[in-house]
């Protein structure tokens, strides 16, 4: 336990140093890349909670990511134009308002989708979550007020009192703090009795039901919590890239989040972050050499799925086991 805490602290400090290293080596883009990877890691970790711990294969997770992002975008749009959403809610650029609202709205959307989807299971569950995500995708494409297919440009990052959010490094550190807090939250969550029940449902739902646990309700709570996490990461992403578009909800984005979870290791805390970092690094590095970067990524993914059980985390554990 002690050793794990120490390791986490070292990783946190190393990540906090990234802007300095980037400035020293003149690789300014590093801060942006690592920041994006951290946010994707949060989104993948939120998916991992239902997918890895709860055994619910949701193929529509990008919808909540996009909804969270759109909350920030819509608030900014009305703030910029001086109008009000539905004529009552004024726009704002205060992060202390936009992020909590993004979390709540994504949670409500997840409650709606989850309440209906969780009545099915197996293949049908995968497909119905995908269907709901597609509905949100097409809904946002059809909203011409908010840019339709083009999305919303958020010209200025939301402000936080006392911080200069225009500064790239400051924004990065804010993201890092959120990612660290979310990691700790998830660690607490999976160790809690609630997390134990969720894991129990994955292992044997019928037995949990026989023990008197209302499994549908617990699965729904987990689904909503997970959607809220995705909403938070989407809101951060829009702040980070200053852009919200329906592309955030495209079904291939949901696929990518699943890839990150698998690549890193299903049902592990650090796995999704490692997977997000690995996939993101791989994509950007390969994209520098060839425009056909999707081919090696596809082949690598296929090999990982077919040959390993447990992704990169399992590989690390295996190597560790061999070394000791």
């Amino acid at each position, binding site marked *: 336990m002690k050793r794990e805490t120490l390791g986490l602290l070292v990783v946190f400090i190393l990540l906090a140093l990234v802007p300095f290293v980037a400035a020293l080596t003149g690789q300014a883009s590093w801060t942006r890349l690592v920041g994006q990877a951290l946010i994707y890691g949060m989104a993948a970790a939120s998916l991992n909670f239902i997918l890895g711990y709860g055994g619910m294969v949701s193929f529509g997770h990008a919808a909540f990511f996009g909804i969270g992002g759109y909350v920030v975008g819509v608030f900014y749009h009305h703030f910029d134009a001086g109008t009000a959403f539905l004529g009552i809610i004024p726009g704002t650029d205060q992060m202390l308002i936009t992020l909590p609202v993004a979390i709540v709205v994504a949670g409500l959307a997840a409650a709606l989708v989850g309440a209906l989807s969780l*009545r099915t299971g197996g*293949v049908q569950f*995968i497909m119905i979550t995908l269907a709901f995500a597609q509905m949100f995708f*097409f809904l946002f*494409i*059809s909203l*011409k007020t908010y840019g339709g297919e083009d999305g919303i440009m958020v010209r200025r990052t939301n402000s936080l009192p006392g911080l200069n959010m225009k500064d790239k490094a400051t924004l990065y550190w804010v993201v890092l703090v959120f990612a660290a807090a979310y990691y700790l939250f998830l660690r607490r969550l999976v160790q809690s009795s609630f997390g134990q029940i969720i894991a129990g449902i994955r292992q044997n739902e019928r037995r949990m039901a026989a023990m008197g646990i209302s499994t549908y309700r617990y699965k729904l709570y987990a689904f909503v919590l997970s959607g809220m996490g995705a909403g938070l990461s989407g809101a951060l992403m829009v702040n980070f890239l200053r852009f919200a578009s329906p592309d955030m909800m495209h079904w291939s984005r949901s696929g990518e989040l699943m890839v990150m979870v698998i690549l890193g290791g299903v049902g592990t805390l650090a796995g999704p972050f490692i997977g997000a970092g690995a996939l993101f690094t791989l994509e950007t590095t390969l994209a520098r050499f060839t425009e056909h970067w*999707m081919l090696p990524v596809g082949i690598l*993914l*296929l090999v990982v799925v077919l040959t390993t059980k447990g992704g990169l985390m399992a590989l690390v554990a295996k190597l560790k086991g061999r070394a000791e």
Partner: protein
Amino acid sequence: MILLFEQLLNGLQYGVTLFLLAAGLTLIFGIMGVINLAHGALYMVGAFAAAWVAIQTGSFWGGLVSGLLASALAGVLVELGVMRRLYARDHLDQVLATFALILIFNQSAVMVFGRQPLFTSAPEIFSGAIEILPGLPYPTYRLFVIAVGLVVALGLYVLINKTRVGMLVRAGATNRQMVRALGVNIQGLYTAVFGLGALLAGLAGVMASPIVSVQVGMGDEIILATFVVVVIGGVGSVKGAFVAGIVLGMFDTMLRAFLPATLQQVMPGPEAQALGVGISSMGIYLMMALVLLIRPRGLFAARG
């Protein structure tokens, strides 16, 4: 009225295409229990091979044969190389491995054919139009597509209900373990079913190639609609795939044709247009959600 009839025929033609894709997918789903996201890639393979050969040789029929061969070959290779290792895995691994296959197929197609869409034309004898109602000329080729789809549906019906292979397929969709326990060469059956599914997907691609632009990503668009058809029809049921395919094809086409204009009568300006298009795209997914809430296993679920 004439417009309505024309759109109904368009819907029928789209529905037949969906059926060709869904028939193979639902059998693969039902018998092997795998989710194959890459089914749309086989559709793309068929379309590309047919279009390329048709452009090179100038013969639609040469394209038809090569499209069918290419997609069936690709299907058998995918089954032997990848699918075979996935049957015992959980759905998550299947989704990811076939997602990876989509990336591989799409990117290979970009490398071979580039990003520019290919355009081909219908064969000469079907290049005209027939006046099916007074004042309504309808392209002969689209009627041909509908006819091919219906013939294939009939052929599949006979194959599945009247032959020994079909009996094994039905048995496999109902209870896989039992078929294996009775000493049937299940590996061979799997490869054959997968190849047949790929062939049907390729046929759908070939038939669509003169109507749509043949380009990378064409499979991704239609595969989602195909999944909706499979799930609504009931996993493993070819009859369900037929009914759901035709109904959804017509429903989708009708929404796209008439909803934007209808909305424009009650709402002002370009927003109504955009909203109409958006809601039409949502239509089939909404229908699937409704069906699953009432019948969680689809309309004609094969497995009890």
